[in-house]
């Protein structure tokens, strides 16, 4: 019962904030709403007893990435952006994509949980202090390759960003 209330409250916050992210006219406020949404996710993770994930979510997304987001948004003059046209000619494409995503979501809702195969982890893994260790072991054994690929991707992105930012190296 309490679980349900908490979940739906959080879900409502997340959805509302996510909507605000795209509806707000001001990019900095969008960022603020995004932060709120991310914090909501962190709370969801905690409710799912994935504390590590919650901590990393806050540390990386809220404390790190959003800081950089804001950094960029502040450099771009927000006040001129506000006056720019909100509706571009892309709206037809946007409608198509939105409809596609909606169809997908409706399909998922209709089919319910049957398409998700959920595996209950052994109880031992869910005990209190093991959480972090489990994630670590999974990352560095089962999912080592995706992990490394992701890190290489990030490295490439970083180098690209440096090259873009510094014309003369």
């Amino acid at each position, binding site marked *: 019962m309490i679980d349900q209330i908490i979940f739906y409250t959080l879900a409502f916050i997340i959805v509302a904030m996510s909507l605000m992210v795209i509806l707000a006219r001001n990019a900095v406020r969008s960022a603020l709403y995004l932060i709120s949404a991310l914090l909501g996710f962190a709370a969801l993770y905690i409710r799912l007893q994935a504390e590590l994930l919650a901590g990393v979510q806050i540390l990386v997304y809220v404390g790190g990435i959003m800081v950089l987001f804001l950094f960029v948004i502040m*450099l*771009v*003059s927000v006040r*001129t952006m506000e006056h720019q046209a909100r509706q571009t000619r892309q709206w037809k494409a946007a409608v198509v994509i939105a409809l596609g995503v909606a169809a997908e979501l409706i399909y998922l809702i209709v089919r319910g949980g049957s398409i998700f195969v959920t595996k209950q982890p052994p109880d031992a893994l869910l005990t209190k202090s093991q959480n972090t260790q489990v994630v670590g072991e999974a990352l560095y054994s089962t999912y080592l390759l995706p992990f490394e690929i992701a890190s290489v991707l990030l490295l490439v992105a970083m180098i690209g960003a440096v090259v*873009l930012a510094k*014309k*003369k*190296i």
Partner: protein
Amino acid sequence: MEHDIFGAIDEKTVLDANQVVINMGPQHPSTHGVLRVKLTLDGERVIDTDCIIGYLHRGTEKIVENRPYAAGVPYFDRTDYVAAVSNNLGYVECVEKMLGVEVPPRVQYIRTMMTEFQRIASHLLWLGTHALDIGAMTVFLYAFREREEILKLFEALFGARLTIHAFRIGGLWQDLPVGFLDACRRFSDTIGEHINEYEGLLTNNRIWLERTRDIGVISAQDAIDLGLTGPVLRGSGVNYDVRKARPYSAYADFDFDIPLGVHGDTYDRYLVRIEEMRQSNRIIQQCITRMPTGPIRAKAPRVIKPPVGEYYHSVEGPKGELGYYIVSEGKTSPYRVRIRPPTFINLQALKKLVKGHLVADVVAIIGTLDIVLGEIDR
């Protein structure tokens, strides 16, 4: 190497924050008064500067044209108001030269001594505020502690602390009070240790070095070209000090060295000024031990009317060559008095010094120029 692929993107359309114009001042804690510096920044890097001055303009030169010579002296307390003694000395001596008045040696010595006290006081104020600008708060209070002692000496001799009307044309207002020389000696004996104290906090401090070395570098040639004088010029290694070049007052009688910098950066100017304080103290000690006796007033005319003519007299103020150019038409008030304001001229170099540095360095460079707005704006 240049990437032409990116050439098509006009950065301004992507980020129009490339150049920011920021107003430093006129109310800013580190512009040392009502100086306004318009900085054009690229990020935090300074591309261009424009100094806007005159907020404190009182028309001193115009005022003294309408005042008797002697009544002009207090107006010069208020140009460089943290070095009033030096200002008074320059003006008073200039008028005396025009009058042909020779002041007695005791007056010369007292004047020299007090001017050197003023130099120390001015440098202390510079040191304190400069260090504070760079974030070293304690030095500021230490420096003010010693400056306070000097101001007490001023109060004893001149009756005031800041705008003191130190000298009169032809002499002094009063002779040294009883025990004054002992007080001077006490100060002179301890200031050396205090200077060591400041140096202990700054001279070898890694952060201080990082903040001042290679900041605001100016070569000797550029410094002369920009008319810099005083410690700013000597920090670049140019040996030009009016006290040695054209000795005035009693400076010819004393032993002292002119410290010179090598690199012409903020750190060298800092070292030069620190050493100048020690040398000033040397002069003071010589003054104390050799203080002659005698009258404290020359036989100057009661109504001061220099003959028709003109005279340029400069003294080495704490901040640079402080000149007075007086044109007399033989009246009781000067026809024209021109102050050569050292900090006005030194401030002009700001544009050159800060180019390419960061905002934080602007503060350090304004500090190292040791400006005072009362004199810049007059």
